[in-house]
């Protein structure tokens, strides 16, 4: 049997297996799985033991293949999703200052939320967006949404739909056009922000589904940044937080809080220190901290266990590589 046929057979088998599980899910006989704390501990011990074996192998000069590392990463991310271990999430000062800035606003304030990211960054930023919307609804804030990335407005809609699935927030009866609006996307990056400094309408003549700016009561009196009380920017790169700081904050004096992907967050710390940013939510950890502060633990918190495990696996592999490097690998030119 040729390798290609074997590969196709394996893929087919996996898909059939998944189909059986799926049918089980749909028909109701397959319930979700949750590991008890004891099972979770056994899994962790087995994982640690197997890493010790890899350490020994690496010291003896045999680097494990990249596919083995891939399997460990997959396991480190997947298994914690089944575990029911609760973790204490400490609050960092940058998240607390962002929350404090929001607390200072009066109920019913008008906030502008810019969705400057696309689906790849959603696991980090979507929990922030949802928590932020929940917080806004708790405080009866009016929410004006926009995007400098073309995918942003759809991500905003998804977050809003998710929040409104909760009966508590559905009962708030937030009306589109009155309590919240999605102005859509506009090209021009930082030039859009600059133009909004004098005239919002010039960049968003219609909302995301074509309704005229003038017909939307929520933005009837919104001419420029001086008519919004707070800006929250969810950013995954360019255009994003840097541009909002440079134009909206430094030129128009906007009060800005940012939710960043972890890749981008370190670049924004100088702005935090200089007071150009009120606070930063950095990556999924920032989302989890914000969820804790706002009293509604959701996906950010749920995923922190997987995040912890995956970090430990990466650190374990770095340590294994270095131990082997110092204990003999140096001679064998182990370090690739």
């Amino acid at each position, binding site marked *: 049997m040729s390798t290609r046929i074997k590969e196709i057979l394996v893929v087919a088998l996996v898909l059939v297996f998944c189909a059986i599980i799926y049918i089980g899910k749909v028909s109701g006989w397959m319930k979700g799985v949750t590991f008890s704390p004891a099972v979770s501990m056994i899994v962790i011990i087995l994982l640690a033991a197997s890493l010790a074996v890899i350490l020994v192998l690496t010291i003896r000069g045999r*680097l494990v293949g990249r596919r083995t590392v891939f399997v460990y990463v997959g396991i480190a991310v997947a298994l914690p999703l089944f575990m029911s271990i609760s973790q*204490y999430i400490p609050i960092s000062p940058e998240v607390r200052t962002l929350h404090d800035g929001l607390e200072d606003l009066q109920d019913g304030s008008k906030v502008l939320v810019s969705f400057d990211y696309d689906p790849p960054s959603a*696991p980090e930023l979507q929990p922030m967006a949802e928590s932020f919307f929940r917080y806004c609804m708790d405080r009866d804030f009016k929410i004006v949404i926009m995007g400098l990335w073309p995918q942003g407005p759809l991500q905003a809609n998804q977050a809003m739909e998710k929040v409104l699935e909760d009966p508590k927030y559905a009962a708030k009866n937030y009306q589109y056009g009155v309590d919240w609006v999605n102005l859509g996307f506009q090209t021009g990056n930082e030039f859009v922000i600059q133009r909004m400094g004098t005239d919002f309408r010039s960049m968003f003549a219609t909302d995301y589904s074509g309704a005229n700016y003038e017909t939307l009561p929520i933005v009837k009196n919104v001419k420029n940044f001086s008519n919004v009380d707070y800006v929250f920017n969810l950013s995954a790169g360019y255009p994003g937080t840097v541009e909002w700081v440079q134009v909206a904050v430094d030129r128009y004096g906007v009060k800005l809080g940012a939710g960043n992907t972890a890749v981008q967050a370190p670049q924004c710390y100088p702005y935090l220190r200089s007071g150009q940013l009120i606070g930063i939510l950095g990556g999924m950890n920032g989302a989890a901290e914000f969820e804790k502060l706002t009293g509604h633990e959701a996906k950010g918190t749920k995923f922190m266990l997987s995040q912890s495990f995956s970090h430990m696996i990466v650190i374990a592999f*770095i340590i294994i590589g270095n131990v082997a490097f110092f204990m003999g690998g140096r001679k064998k030119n182990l370090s690739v």
Partner: protein
Amino acid sequence: MRREIPLIITGLVGIVFVVQYFIPHWPFNRMNAWFSDWFSIVQACAIWLGALNLLKISLEKIARRKSDWGYAVVIIASFLLITIIGFVEGESFRDPGTRFTWLYDFVYTPLSSTMFAILAFFVASASYRAFRARNFEATLLLLAAFFVMMGRVPVGDALTAFMPEGWRLTDLATWIMNFPQTAGQRAIMIGIALGIVSTSLRIILGIERSHLGGD
């Protein structure tokens, strides 16, 4: 004509954007508004150009029956599928429940998300094979990475729970991020900004002309 007019446009537009920062009044505020509006439209056309270029290259690949030309057919078919649906559905193409949204949710989202998520595996593999404390600088880098990775997840706090508050891994990560990390970022930020400022000045004054190409 081919070089002079673009040079004049570049200089004029650049100067207007500099001046309007200091004099946000007529006529500079008006010019700022026009130029910002035009920039938005031109940028949209530039991105369209990219998409049309992709089509052109894919069509050429099919016409010349280059290797893997079948995938070029898939690119064109996918492009046409979402484009036609987007145009047919009109300006409310993004409303919940439209076919365009369906494509976004169940085709675009999984593909783009997974494309980036796959990097997690390669980061881990590269860390194992190449991240070595060879000298003092590399050791500093490694230690900073270690403390930040551990300190930014709850497990770091749990492992150092026996330490007094303020001295745990979380606090150490916070300190690294807010002080030495910020200092380094700031040095990089200022360096890049000075580079951008000098390049911008060269472009506006017409000293830097590489963006205009040959002849």
